[in-house]
Each structure stands twice: as C-alpha cells, then as structure tokens.
C-alpha cells in the first residue's frame, strides 16, 4: 500500500485511546505486522527529529501522540480557560427558569421531578440565575429569575427573543 505511513499516522492521530497494533492490522488488512511496526518506528523517529511540540509514544498497549512536557504550562492554561458546556441538568433547570420566571424552587422541582438545590446554586455561582425576590406566602419562598449574563451566554438581546415552541414547530 502506497500511503501506509500516512494512514498509520492518521489512525493514531484520530484515535481517542492509544491505538493497538492489532486494531491497525484489522483495519489496514493487507499489511504485515512487521511492516506496520517498521512504519511506527519511522514515525517515532520523524517526530523526535522534528523536535516539535508532539511525539509518538507506545503506551497502554497501543500508540498515541502526546504533547511534550515542556509545553505543559501553556496547555494547562488553555484547558483552564476552555469554556465549559452546561450539563443537561443545568440546561433543563435554566430552561424552566427562563420560561417560567419569576419562579420558586418548588415549581422548578415540580417540572423536573428532582431536587434542584445543587444545580440552582451552581447556576447562581455562574451568574446565570439570580434571586429576584421573595413571595408573601407562608415560608416566604425565594423566587428566581435569569440574569443579564444569561442573555449574553445564549446570545439574546432580551427575554422576548426567546423562541416559543410554536415558532420552532412552524
């Protein structure tokens, strides 16, 4: 096979976990084991000689590209500033708050069917949800609403930009 080296490199590159020799042989089919191991040795040498930011290593029964240790401080910084997705639970909770505000915790829990204390706290820490007031009923329950930050994160000008179900169903 002409492109064997390129294919081996690409396979190792895209694999989420260290890619085993067996898996590679299974995929490539018509290549001998020695041929593939030879290519991997070549690749290891290529990357060492290049002296770049990544290298090829045999690990956990397979092969994987990894970044060099000297790059670690910058990588940590990248990961720390990487925006994090909201969990499904958080998304559902904020959906209830957005559409039903001003809303009590008990109302959110009635819709979601689970306790939302922890998630509510998290959403307030992220400044997506806030306490808007209290209700004059026994227990004086807190009522919640969304924040300006919520509008920013979801790219809305104001709450009336929120689409309704009907609009999406068309």
């Amino acid at each position, binding site marked *: 096979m002409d492109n064997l080296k390129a294919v081996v490199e690409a396979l190792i590159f895209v694999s989420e976990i260290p890619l085993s020799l067996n898996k590679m042989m299974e995929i490539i089919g018509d290549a001998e084991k020695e041929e593939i191991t030879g290519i991997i040795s070549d690749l290891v040498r290529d990357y060492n000689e290049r002296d770049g930011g990544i290298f090829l290593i045999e690990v956990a029964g397979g092969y994987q590209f990894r970044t060099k240790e000297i790059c670690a401080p910058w990588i940590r910084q990248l990961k720390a500033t990487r925006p994090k997705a909201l969990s499904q639970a958080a998304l559902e909770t904020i959906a209830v708050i957005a559409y039903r*505000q001003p809303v009590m915790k008990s109302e959110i829990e009635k*819709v979601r069917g689970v306790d939302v204390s922890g998630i509510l706290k998290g959403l307030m820490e992220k400044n997506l949800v806030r306490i808007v*007031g209290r209700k004059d009923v026994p227990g004086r329950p807190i009522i919640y609403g969304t924040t300006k930050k919520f509008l920013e994160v979801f790219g809305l000008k104001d709450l009336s930009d*929120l689409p309704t*179900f009907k609009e999406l169903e068309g």
Partner: protein
Amino acid sequence: MSYKFRLDIFEGPLDLLLYLIKKNEIDIYNIPIAIITEQYLEYIEAMKSLNLNLAGEYLVLAATLIHIKSRMLLPVHDEDEIEDEEDPREELVRQLLEYKTFKEAALNLDKMTLLGRDIFNREFSDEDEDEEAERPVREIGIFELVEAFRKMVAQSAATELMEIDVEKISLSERINEIIDELNEKKTLTFTDLVGELHNKMRLIYTFLAILELMKLRIIKAYQTVSYGTIRIRLAVEN
C-alpha cells in the same frame, strides 16, 4: 410509467418543475405552460395513485400553473398592451431560477471536503472533566435551551407549561425589571412605572406585570387615601 420510480426523489414542486423543463429541453425563459402543466399534473396524479404522501405545496404549484395557463389563453385585444403587460410566467421563472441557483450551490457544498466525512480531527474524551467553577460557560445555542425545555415538558404531566408565547416571555421581562426597581427604591408609584412610557405594548406589559406580581404575592399595592396615589412595594423585604 417510468416516472413512478422517480417521484420521491424530488425535493419539492419546484424541483419537479425543473426536472420537467430539463427533460423536455425547454428554454426556462419561455416555458410552454400548457405542456408543462399537463405533465406536472400527470406526475401529481401518479403520486396520488401511489398513495405517496403528497405535500400540499405540490397542489399549490399546480394551481399556480393552471392560473398562469388561463391567463396566457386570454385574448389580447390591443397590440400595445403586450408591451406593458407583465408575462404571467415572470414570477414563476424568477422563482425557478433562484431555486436552481441554490440547488447548484447545494451541490457545490456537497463537493467540498467535509469534516467527519472526508477529513477528521482528533477525538477527545471527557477524561479531564475537572470541576473548576472558574471556567467560563460555553456559549450555547438558544435552540438547545428550548429543546431541553420541550423534552422536559413532554415527560411531565404539567401541560399548562406548553402555553408559552412571546407575550408571556415579555411579561417575565417586565416583571424582572419592576422587581429590580423595587429592590432599589423600595416603593414606587403607579405613575413612576407607567408615566413616561410612550410605547403602548410596554404600558400594557407593565400593567399586566403589576397584576401578576400582586397575584403571585410578590408585591403589594396600597394607597393612603381613597383615590390617592397607588404605591407598590415588595411584599417581603429581602
């Protein structure tokens, strides 16, 4: 009839019409409406007889074609009128050309090197889902939010939740604004809230918001003398 096998591959009535034009090698700027209408209706009949799910749009275009055909048949009394009068086919031709362009653009897009089909990036696992609260929140499409809510509502029995419309959301917005103002100023008069409002919708929303807040027992309205100034304040101080 060979066309039976082609019916479901049309993307819509315009696509079918384009196909007929191509098949008959017709000039798109000078469509012989009578012939094309006849063929178009044959296809529609075939679709019906095959019990294919015939989208209403096919019938709309059929009606349009018939209408154009009848207009083309009208005798022209005055030769000069031809100059001024718009060709009944003009709008349809414009629509067909536009659709044709986008069809080509779609083909073009499909020919591009697509991620996930032709080329790939690394796969990432969630290995380091560290719980750093400091990390910024990723921007989210509003569609995800609506979908999350819709799914939840579908599961719960609370059907009244479905009644969400733009008015209700705008009302929420006004309610939040009023509570914010009350948190700041403690008491507000009715005129404080509605006085300078020139926008009629905003006036209505303000009024509805106050009623809703009173109903929810979040605010209280009171006056010191009958027919005096109505003041509102938070029912419960934070």
